[in-house]
């Protein structure tokens, strides 16, 4: 594999890495030489997220890469906005943004002054829009742009911050993904979980230090606008 050893010696944390898409990303990091561990966000408060990261980084012996792949599954449930409760909005959309901010902060605390890579998973549907998924696209688009502000504010610390935008089918077992008609993929054999790994491998590498604030859509070539 062309990327053999590309992440040798690099220490990575993946939120949501215990299952699904996050687990696929974590595996991809490991096969490329990284020491990668999944990190569970237990207490979602600012202090809780920071403490989780402190413990995980101590166990890893340092940090070079953070991949924020955790996503509340309730955000993937298709539901009309008018049938969405205030609690669903707050616990889905707003909590999602809040958690992403705290994960960014926790990452910064351990990467500042030394440099590193932060990658946020921001499903491509956020720039296309999808009926029934207003809370998801609201939260994800917020995260995608706050990542750019982090890129601007933290670049001087050698920290790059980019978004990885998979198709929705990467986040589900294929039969369960909401039907969002965005068109046919340019790459018909694209595996939505496995085939994102090479792009993440590059983004996480030392080599990628000149790319920041970008959104890399890796959905098999479905959504290409912008």
């Amino acid at each position, binding site marked *: 594999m062309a990327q053999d050893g590309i992440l040798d010696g690099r220490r990575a944390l993946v939120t949501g890495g215990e299952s699904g898409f996050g687990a696929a990303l974590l595996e991809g990091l490991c096969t490329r030489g990284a020491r990668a561990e999944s990190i569970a966000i237990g207490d979602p408060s600012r202090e809780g997220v920071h403490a989780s990261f402190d413990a995980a980084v101590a166990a890893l012996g340092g940090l070079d890469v953070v991949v924020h792949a955790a996503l509340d599954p309730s955000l993937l449930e298709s539901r009309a906005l008018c049938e969405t409760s205030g609690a669903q909005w707050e616990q889905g959309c707003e909590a999602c*943004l809040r958690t992403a901010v705290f994960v960014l902060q926790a990452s910064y605390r351990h990467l500042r002054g030394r440099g590193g890579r932060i990658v946020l998973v921001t499903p491509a549907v956020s720039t296309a829009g999808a009926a029934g998924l207003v809370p998801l696209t609201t939260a994800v688009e917020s*995260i995608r*742009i*706050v990542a750019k502000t982090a890129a601007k504010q933290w670049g001087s610390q050698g920290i790059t911050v980019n978004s990885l935008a998979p198709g929705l089918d990467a986040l589900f077992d294929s039969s369960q993904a909401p039907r969002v008609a965005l068109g046919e993929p340019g790459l018909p054999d694209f595996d939505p979980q496995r085939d994102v790994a090479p792009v993440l491998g590059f983004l996480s590498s030392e080599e990628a230090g000149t790319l920041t604030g970008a959104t890399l859509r890796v959905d098999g070539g479905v959504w290409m606008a912008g």
Partner: protein
Amino acid sequence: MKDLLADRVVLITGAGAGVGRGIALACGGAGAKVVVTARNPEQGRGVVAEITERGGTALFARCDVTRRAEIDAAVQAACQQFGALDALIHNATSNRSPEPHALEDVDASLIEEHTSVALRAAFDCAQLSFEPLRQRQGHYVLLTSPAGIEGSATLPLYSAVKAGQRGFLKSLAKEWGPQGIQVNAISPLSATPALVRAFEANPTLKTQLETLTPLGRVGDPELDIGAAATLLLSPASRYITGQTWVVDGGRFLGL
């Protein structure tokens, strides 16, 4: 523009000053019945007076957009006193929007300050106006910013929520299109009180901004932004939805 919005009822949040006031005045001048909502009754009633002195029709409804009941009351006032609701323009933004901050320092309360006004209120305004807007095949409009597209180096949370509003409007446009409701955003650049204060604090800022703007000036909230809002709500724009109109003299060309 005089009768472009004749017989339309337009509700605007945060209409006591700045862009909200500008849009209210423009819509009122175009014949709309305007529901001016604001937290500050003196400011809100002042805008109503300006509209009526110019021959237009308006009423004031006090509304803090972080209070769902007040949004509901304002929508009800529109329907009961003016008979319908053709457009809801959610313009209100946090008072802390222009405050620079470092992302690594923000806490939950500052996040809540921004999300409650920009995102939660967008959610509440949408839910509470859906039925009246559906009946009139009307408009739902948000006010966004280039910060929500390219991110601002000094305003991470403002950028986040302005971006969130664009993610919101695209999905809502797809969801409400079959109901005949158009959902769009305007991204303005104009001399709001906040920007004027910034110019006073930093005299070179105005010149810098004018230099960066192809049309060479900072916009007027009524004559530039309000005019565009009027056009967006008019019959001419009946086939436009899911879009962000950047009304800023060409300063931002990133869309």
